[in-house]
């Protein structure tokens, strides 16, 4: 499509960060036709990362949720249909059927349907609260009073962030993790150790190596039973056990799905008139030797949304930013760029006793990922430099990487 065909209709399914960015990017690139964003929530696009952190600890309120793009919907004449689900997609007719009976026609479609929190499939699993939307977060927040017993299932990012927030709110927190350490999916063991120690120092209890068998509703609260035979009383149970991509619409319409809606490196699905981006999309990543990846992160949601919009308008921009995420727990900040598990050798750079950067090198000495934990002002610059080195496929001298007094930025000039 080109900007001159001002009569066309572009529809975006999903009004999260990705869909919102895509809609605004279409206008920024000069698209004059119609843009409609269809969302199941009632709020304009907002930033989800704060839900588990600032919102649970009452530092931010829903009134200030809207992100930079959401404020532009009105001025840029972007139509936002709220609180409505898309029931079906008819690719041959280029049309969508909405739950309220409306039908919408599109020339190009972007699926930015996001992901949903995975729920524990155990007896009583429905009593575990999940955190995905602002409504979920509000529901959890009203229950985090001082002295409340909170049991968290899952030691990943959401579980740990909620554990920190609940502790800050004065709750007594126990976290149950199936593996023998936290963050086993996304961070190296050295970082997991620092994070766990920080939580323990704040009073969080950990139960490792066991799953949850059931949750029972007792008159005086909930009873959580582990697979190892332990029982715990709880006022609130929160599950942070991952997310599942929202692919039902795409699947029913016959689009290729492979752990997410499959796209090529241009974010185009198996139907050339349909694109997918953000948490719902599994995309071919050019920087990672064409590995197919589904990223659940704030930054990739924004970037893929923007790139999909540009490609819809006829550009050919590859999806090519490295995976990157951050987490905040107490005053500790975690940042990871690239995929640490693709590296064979790890070089440690200790910036302080509790600030560590890991550089992950592949068999040829090439930097493929970096992971860090510590105070933001100690780690952020180095992670950003590492990201640029990874994108350049650099092979930095490991001795320099390990030397904390060496200014890492110097490597960029090489």
């Amino acid at each position, binding site marked *: 499509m080109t900007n001159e065909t001002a009569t066309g209709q572009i529809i975006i399914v999903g009004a999260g960060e990705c869909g919102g960015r895509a809609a605004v990017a279409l206008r920024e690139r000069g698209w004059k036709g119609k843009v409609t964003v269809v969302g199941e929530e009632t709020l304009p696009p907002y930033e989800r990362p*704060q839900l588990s952190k600032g919102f649970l600890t009452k530092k931010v309120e829903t009134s200030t949720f809207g992100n930079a793009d959401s404020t532009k919907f009105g001025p840029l004449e972007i139509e936002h249909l709220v609180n409505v689900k898309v029931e079906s997609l008819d690719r041959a007719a280029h049309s969508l059927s909405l739950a309220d009976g409306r039908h919408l026609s599109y020339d190009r479609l972007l699926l930015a349907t996001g992901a949903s929190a995975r729920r524990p499939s155990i007896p009583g699993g429905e009593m575990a609260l999940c955190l995905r939307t602002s409504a979920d977060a509000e529901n959890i927040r009203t229950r985090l009073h001082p002295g409340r017993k909170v049991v968290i299932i899952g030691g990943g990012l959401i579980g740990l962030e909620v554990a920190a927030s609940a502790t800050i709110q004065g709750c007594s927190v126990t976290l149950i993790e199936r593996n023998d350490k936290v963050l086993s999916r996304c961070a190296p063991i050295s970082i997991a150790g620092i994070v766990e120690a920080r939580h323990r120092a704040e009073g969080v209890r950990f139960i490792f190596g066991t799953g949850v068998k059931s949750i029972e509703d007792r008159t005086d609260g909930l009873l959580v039973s582990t697979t190892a035979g332990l029982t715990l009383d709880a006022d609130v149970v929160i599950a942070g056990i991952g997310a599942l991509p929202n692919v039902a619409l795409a699947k029913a319409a016959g689009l290729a799905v492979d752990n997410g809606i499959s796209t090529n490196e241009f974010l185009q699905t198996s139907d050339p008139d349909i694109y997918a981006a953000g948490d719902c999309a599994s995309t071919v990543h050019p920087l990672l030797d064409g590995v197919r990846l589904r990223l659940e992160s704030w*930054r990739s949601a924004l970037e893929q949304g923007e790139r999909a919009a540009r490609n819809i308008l006829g550009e050919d921009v590859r999806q090519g930013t490295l995976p990157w995420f951050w987490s905040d727990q107490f005053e500790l900040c975690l940042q990871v760029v690239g995929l640490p598990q693709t590296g064979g050798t790890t070089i440690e750079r200790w910036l302080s006793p509790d600030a560590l950067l890991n550089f992950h090198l592949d068999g040829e000495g090439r930097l493929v990922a970096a992971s860090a934990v510590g105070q933001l*002002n100690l780690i*952020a610059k180095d992670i950003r430099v590492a990201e640029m080195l990874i994108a350049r496929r650099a092979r930095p001298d490991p001795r320099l990487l390990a030397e904390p007094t060496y200014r890492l930025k110097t490597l960029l000039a090489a």
Partner: protein
Amino acid sequence: MIANWIDACAAGDIENEDVIRFDHEGQTFAIYRTEDDRYFATAGLCTHEAVHLSSGLVMGTIIECPKHNGRFDFTSGKAKGAPVCVDLRTFPVKVEDDRVYVQIDA
């Protein structure tokens, strides 16, 4: 309005192509030094989520927020696109006798 020149730091306290934080009377600033030894000052917090920009990386005349990679041109304060859309406030800077002075409205 009386313009106040505040002695912020020594010229050598900031490395080339870098930034430091400067706090003064309850306000926080970011002071920058370019590769070619020019000095600039902006408000210290990102307009997106109030993160200290001094923790971020300077590349040329761009400061990148350490949290969400929002970018600003620190010579003009201009926001360079999502997720930031509000420009940074800038403040005049002068260097005299190897000291960096920032002009802050009194």
